[in-house]
């Protein structure tokens, strides 16, 4: 027998996750925005005299082996991170959602089969390998990384969109819309999309977290953001040889990545609870 959990308990929990996730994401976004106008120092300025400068004296977190200010680099790195996430998730959603919806609205057709089999193929292909290959062919860089991560994330969106669409398609309101004379395209835009939207938003924030990790990994491997543009992944890579002598150089970008990923994951989970129509109904009825 299924147990209904109380609406109140859920409300409390989802607020905590949502708030924490939202706060972390907001922090990252705010940092990125501020970095456009102000950073303590030029994050790309190489200063031989300030090499491995200790924290303090205007250098809040010290400087790296080229004398670049770590704090300023972190700030601008947030920009890169968000940029990669937005574009990669954007590509994934723009391709994956229509494909998934098309597959979900024609569940027994050849189109659906084709979409989902190609989807499986892409899904089975490691995202990082794809990025490395694209990088080798078209040259490594932020754009290549974004496209690779985006394409690799398409199947995730297509699957979620298809599963959600299948659920929506069997509801009476779709039948009612058809009986009212709505054509397929209008049904997709007016009924299916709004009703699967919440699941897509959740997927987007989870994919965002994965994209951040992927970009960091690619930059670490040298297939991501090219120098001198600051990136958290490359900061990690550059700190590698000094890991034991100056651990703080690895610590700060590591913390930044962890917090950003945690933030988007928490936000995703929080949104999942928050947007759940069943919970919403309970709230509305009270």
């Amino acid at each position, binding site marked *: *027998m299924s*147990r209904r*959990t*109380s609406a109140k*308990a859920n409300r409390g929990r989802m607020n905590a996750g949502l708030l924490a996730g939202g706060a972390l994401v907001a922090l990252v976004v705010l940092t990125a925005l501020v970095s456009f106008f102000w950073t303590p120092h030029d994050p790309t300025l190489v200063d031989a005299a300030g090499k491995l400068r200790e924290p303090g004296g205007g250098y809040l977190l010290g400087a790296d082996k080229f004398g670049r200010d770590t704090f300023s680099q972190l700030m601008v790195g947030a920009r890169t991170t968000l940029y990669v996430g937005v574009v990669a998730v954007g590509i994934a959603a723009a391709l994956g959602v229509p494909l998934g919806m098309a597959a979900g609205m024609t569940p027994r057709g050849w189109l659906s089969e084709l979409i989902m089999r190609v989807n499986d193929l892409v899904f089975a292909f490691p995202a990082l390998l794809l990025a490395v290959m694209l990088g080798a062919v078209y040259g490594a860089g932020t754009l290549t990384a974004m496209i690779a991560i985006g394409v690799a994330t398409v199947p995730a969106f297509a699957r979620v969109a298809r599963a959600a669409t299948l659920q929506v398609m069997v509801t009476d309101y779709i039948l009612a819309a058809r009986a009212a004379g709505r054509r397929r395209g209008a049904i997709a835009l007016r009924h299916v999309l709004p009703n699967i939207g919440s699941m897509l938003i959740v997927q987007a924030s989870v994919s965002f977290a994965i994209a951040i990790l992927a970009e960091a990994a690619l930059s670490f491997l040298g297939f991501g953001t090219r120098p001198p543009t600051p990136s958290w992944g490359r900061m990690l890579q550059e700190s590698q040889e000094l890991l034991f002598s100056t651990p703080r150089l690895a610590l700060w970008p590591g913390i930044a990545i962890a917090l950003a990923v945690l933030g988007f994951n928490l936000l995703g989970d929080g949104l999942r609870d928050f947007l759940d129509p069943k919970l919403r109904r309970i709230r509305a009825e*009270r």
Partner: protein
Amino acid sequence: MLSVEGLTVRADATDLVHDVSFAIAPGERVGLIGESGSGKSLTALSLMGLLPEGVTAAGRARLGERDLVGVPESRIKGLRGDELSMVFQEPMTALNPLMRIGAQVTEVMTLHGRSRQEARARSAELLERVRLPEPAQIARAYPHQLSGGQRQRVMLAIALANEPRLLICDEPTTALDVTVQKQMLELIAEVAPALLFITHDLAVVASVCERVLVMYGGRVVESGPIREVFTRPRHRYTQGLLAASKLTPRGTRLPVIEGGVPAAGRFPGGCVFRNRCPHATPECETPPALTGDGHAFACWHPAD
């Protein structure tokens, strides 16, 4: 045998069931009638100790010598499925889809201390008792291989497995076809040791029970022997509900109760029915007490 006194079920600050009292004697079949939001299912769940999280029960409910309300979960657990058992509306979700029927019937007995062998022998007997054809075959089947009516019979077999003193049925036939429903109702009436039967359907109650409690807005508004309550309803709600339940031939207008059933917690103070009642007066702002011997009702302006 079962006695309930002042049972109140609460979520947050809202009383979903308010001050409900009734008793069921051994062998007696009592119907609990109500529409959505009446609190009828919560009343049953609170007796089973199965209230949803965040919903609490207060008051007294005793089965024989044992308290059912306000005791720790562990104490009720032993009673559930043993002294007191329940059949739910949807048999598909109440059965484990991955376990064979026989094993599910046996399990409820071994859980309450019977030997495996004894339980197995008895489970065949039980499946026969609920008139399932070919009980041996049914025992080997999985839930999805049975029809809705057959699944509900299995639920009944499980409920009866440990010879409970009281059987609670919550809309057990609502999901079934009428022809299947009829047989199921006859079976329940026959095998129940003592019955609390919850439904929204007056005609179903009339065919199974001897006594009835009418709930509305979380309160019992009328109670008594079925024949008396249904032929001479006193509470205006019962009267309206009975009138609305009888479908007349075409061309006639159906008698209606105005308005809709309020959402939980939105019922008016005083008499819970007064915002829909054609006989309501300012007096009804004071809550009427449930009074009367045998046939009791809570109404300031009862029907004759």
